[in-house]
């Protein structure tokens, strides 16, 4: 049991060290080249452990596969820094410009929406709760002997009412 635990601990250590060994033995094409960068005890362990051999071979195979991909680190060049500085200058000018109404509007849209919603809520609450006022106007009606209305003495509110009352008057 103790031997098994020792072996597992060695496997863990070997596999952790493989990463560093992988960097150190850049271009290693065989297990032995990778294992050569390990301390003696781990080298012996790797020789006897199938799992660790597979782990080391995976590093070599994966590296060979990934070598088909180009490095993009070389994409930059002397042209890049001036381009960045020009972009910074343009952005700085944009930020420094006094904001006009149309650029402010989208920025304030959310706040304006909230303010409008609150105002609408308050106004509708006030309209709903205000004391009811008597809007009906008492009209004094003069009647003739038969009791029929003769003249509507209620003061017309506007020209339309005058015209309506004239139109309704019996000829």
């Amino acid at each position, binding site marked *: 049991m103790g031997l098994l635990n020792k072996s597992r601990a060695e496997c863990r250590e070997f*596999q*952790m060290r*493989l*990463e*560093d060994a992988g*960097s150190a033995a*850049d271009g290693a094409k065989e297990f032995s080249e990778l294992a050569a960068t390990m301390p003696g005890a781990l080298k012996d362990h790797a020789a006897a452990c199938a799992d660790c051999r597979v*782990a080391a*071979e*995976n*590093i070599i*195979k*994966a*590296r060979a*596969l*990934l*070598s*088909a*991909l*180009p*490095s*993009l*680190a*070389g*994409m*930059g*060049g002397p042209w*890049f*820094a*001036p*381009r*960045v*500085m020009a*972009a*910074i200058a343009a*952005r700085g000018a944009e*930020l420094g410009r006094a904001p006009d109404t149309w650029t402010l509007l989208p920025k304030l849209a959310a706040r304006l929406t909230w303010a409008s919603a609150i105002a609408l809520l308050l106004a509708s609450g006030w309209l709903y709760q205000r004391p009811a006022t008597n809007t009906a106007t008492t009209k004094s009606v003069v009647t003739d002997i038969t009791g029929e209305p003769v003249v509507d003495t209620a003061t017309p509110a506007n020209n339309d009412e005058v015209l309506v009352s004239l139109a309704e008057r019996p000829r």
Partner: protein
Amino acid sequence: MPRVPKVEPLGSPGVPASAKPPGSKAAGAAEDRELVRRAQNEDQEAFEELVRRHQHRVFAVAGGILRRREDVEDIAQQVFVKAYFSLKRFDQRAAFSTWLYKITVNECWDMLRKKKVRPLVYESDLSEEQARQVITAEEKGGGGPDISERLVARERVERLLDGLDERDRLMLILKEVEGFAVEEIAQVLDLNANTVKVRLFRARRRIVNKVRKRGE
């Protein structure tokens, strides 16, 4: 405006991190701190120097996530513009490079979310002429295998990587293609170095098993 002393870029075009001379890291970090301090005082030349020093690593990280050249260029520019306008808030508790890589990763993932597309580009997505340009730009007449063979190989690898988790794919590309150290990958992805090692180990096993299953 004070002149900024020219310093050697950390990564020359196409030169992996592992090729950097030993001992350059600490000196580079100190120079970065000084350049950042100057850039925070609105010294544009200092910032331009920072761009020159870090552009290749930013391209590498963005390239690991996006793989589409035109996207990588746009994002790299966007990252530096964002860094410039946020620089005053950067307190230098972390290294400038770590901060910059985090901006890069976030910008890339934001872009992918917005575009809702798979990050990988296959050569079959490119026209023959575009693909030829890509290859010739990289090889510059090197005596490697035939162009069409390389295209097929590259497409095969892209498809293999397509089956991996986004982070695992990025780790593998940064480690095996761009030459990042495990510690650098851990910084980029905000993970523990041992976690990176374990995930790299599993990701490799997965792609190698896939290849075995296909009998390639």
